[in-house]
């Protein structure tokens, strides 16, 4: 069976995670990468990638590539995804899908028009612990989940203090609301909203409280109150203010209560995992989602989370921004 040939566009933080994983996928090979940074391209060549481009348009024109992973800044998603679709490349697009609902709709239309598959990178859906929770909810083990807390707090793009760890410059686009589409509500909130929608169905109403500790043009933390089709009340808290990174879901059902966390392991454990398995357990879900994407393409199945999923999430986020609650 012919292997699927992948290209990666964008070698920032998440692009590099995908690069490491793409080299270890079954039934797929990483053929090319593109990035503006010469250093990033050199590192990719050293990792074994044969073709490197400093311009993604050249990569998209390469007939050897079947599908692309787009890991660019959010404001470039639409133009890159549209071009990828026109070049008949299947698309794995990092979250958030786009800056606006309209941009998301354009991406979906481009994919449909050109008959290419589109998947959005929500890796928590491929995390064994979060998947197990979905099974427990579906099986009714927890009963009716009345309240769900979903938290995703980290330093975001602003790297925080770590022992003997020098900070790196923050790319300029992160400071520009026009380019990001917003703060952690769109960046991290898209993850948590997508996860809770997967658990409890569509959002029927949503409100938000936004905070501005760092005086940016956009929020640096947000808490949303959301009502889901299932009747569950979701409290979604996201922020870019903490040195400690934590992703947590806590559910209160009529039968049981449960809490699951996804936290970075300590350095020693990570080093052991990297040496023994070639990848860290922390990033296992990123590997799983890529493996699933490849499987969908090989078997000609529509992947999920789909473009429609990404669109629903952005619709909810847009409503949350609009329905801001101001507290004194």
């Amino acid at each position, binding site marked *: 069976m012919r292997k699927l040939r992948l290209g990666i566009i964008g070698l920032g933080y998440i692009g590099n995670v995908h690069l490491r994983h793409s080299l270890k996928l079954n039934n797929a090979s990483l053929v090319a990468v593109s990035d503006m940074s010469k250093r990033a391209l050199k590192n990719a060549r050293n990792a074994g990638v044969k073709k490197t481009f400093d311009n993604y348009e050249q990569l998209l024109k390469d007939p050897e590539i079947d599908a692309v992973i787009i890991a660019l800044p959010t404001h470039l998603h639409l133009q890159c995804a549209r071009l990828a679709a026109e070049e008949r490349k299947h698309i794995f697009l990092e979250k958030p899908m786009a800056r606006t609902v309209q941009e998301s709709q354009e991406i979906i239309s481009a994919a449909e028009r050109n008959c290419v598959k589109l998947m959005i990178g929500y890796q928590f859906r491929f995390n064994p612990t979060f998947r197990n929770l979905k099974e427990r909810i579906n099986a009714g083990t927890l009963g009716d989940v009345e309240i769900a807390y979903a938290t995703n707090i980290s330093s975001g793009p*602003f*790297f*925080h*203090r770590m*022992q*003997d*760890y*020098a*900070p*790196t*410059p*923050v790319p300029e686009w992160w*400071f520009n609301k026009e380019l990001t589409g917003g703060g952690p509500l769109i960046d991290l909130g898209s993850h948590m909203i997508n996860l809770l929608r997967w658990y409890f169905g569509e959002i029927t109403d949503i409100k938000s409280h936004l905070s501005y*500790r*760092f*005086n*940016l043009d956009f929020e640096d933390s947000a808490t949303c109150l959301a009502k889901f089709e299932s009747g569950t009340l979701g409290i979604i808290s996201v922020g870019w203010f903490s*040195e400690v990174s934590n992703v947590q879901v806590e559910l209160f059902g009529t039968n049981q209560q449960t809490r699951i966390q996804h936290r970075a392991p300590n*350095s020693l454990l*990570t*080093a052991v*995992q*990297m*040496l023994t398995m070639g*990848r*860290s357990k*922390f*990033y296992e879900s990123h590997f799983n989602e890529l493996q699933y994407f490849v499987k969908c393409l090989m078997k000609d199945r529509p992947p999920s989370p789909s473009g429609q999923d990404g669109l629903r999430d952005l619709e909810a986020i847009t409503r949350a921004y609009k329905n801001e609650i101001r507290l004194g």
Partner: protein
Amino acid sequence: MSLVSFVKVAQQNHDEFKQSIIDSLNLIGYSFPKNVRSIVIKPNMCYYWDYSTGQTTDPKFVAALIDVIRGEVQSKPNIIIVEADASAMKCSHAFRLLGYEKMAKKYDVKLVNLTEDKSDLVKVTVGDQSFHLMVPRTIQNADLKINVAKIKYAMEKIKITCALKNIFGCNPYPKKSRCHSRLDEIIVALNKAMRFDLCLIDGNIVSGIQPRRLGLVMASTDPVAIDVAATKIAGVNPKKIKYIQLAAKEGLGNTFFIAKGMSLGYFKERYPKKDVRTKLMARAYGLVVRMKLGKRLGIE
């Protein structure tokens, strides 16, 4: 011998900060010159870490200092807060994110990015080494220069940073990491090129092995003496800090000081010092990074 004062701040509010600054200055017998026209304040900004991390000077502390100055200096001087771009930090963002932009507006003071300021090339010698350094005009033209530093452990081999190292941030050249091979000498050279009149330490929150509210304010007109005192509080032997010894040798100050106010031991006891485990972990991490294994092991 120089005087160094130690004052305890009970609560972190404007009035407490103001009072502690007044007390710390009174203890060293310092009074502001009456006829200054421009005053430069150099806080410590480090990346986009706000005051709660103990890495950067609290804008509330600087605001209290501005109030103290305005209460004592009758000539209504221009007050300018300065910082320069660094390898991973842009002043325009740091001023905003760390709350300085808001504070400057409220207190009607100017913010100057020294990287964008006009500078003059100055030759400085440290021992038998010569340095050609850019000295920003804003600093050259100031009648009074105040260094408002933090006490913290450093990532580099210099181990600890306080008043002398804070002046490294006045270097307008943004790629500061390139200076790290001769950091000790460059710190001293910059302090020789830009002599500050007064040093204050915002030790309300300090950054040791972890951030901690220490509630300390220190003052001295001698950057070497205040650094020696800070080093002792952090549990580091000042004789092992090359740039401090070099600064004393170059005539920037005294390594001996007379302590005024509260005892140094009170703050030393409470400073979040490094333990053996942390030191070993830091060494192991440094080794992994030097061997370029960080990425491969997933810890960089």
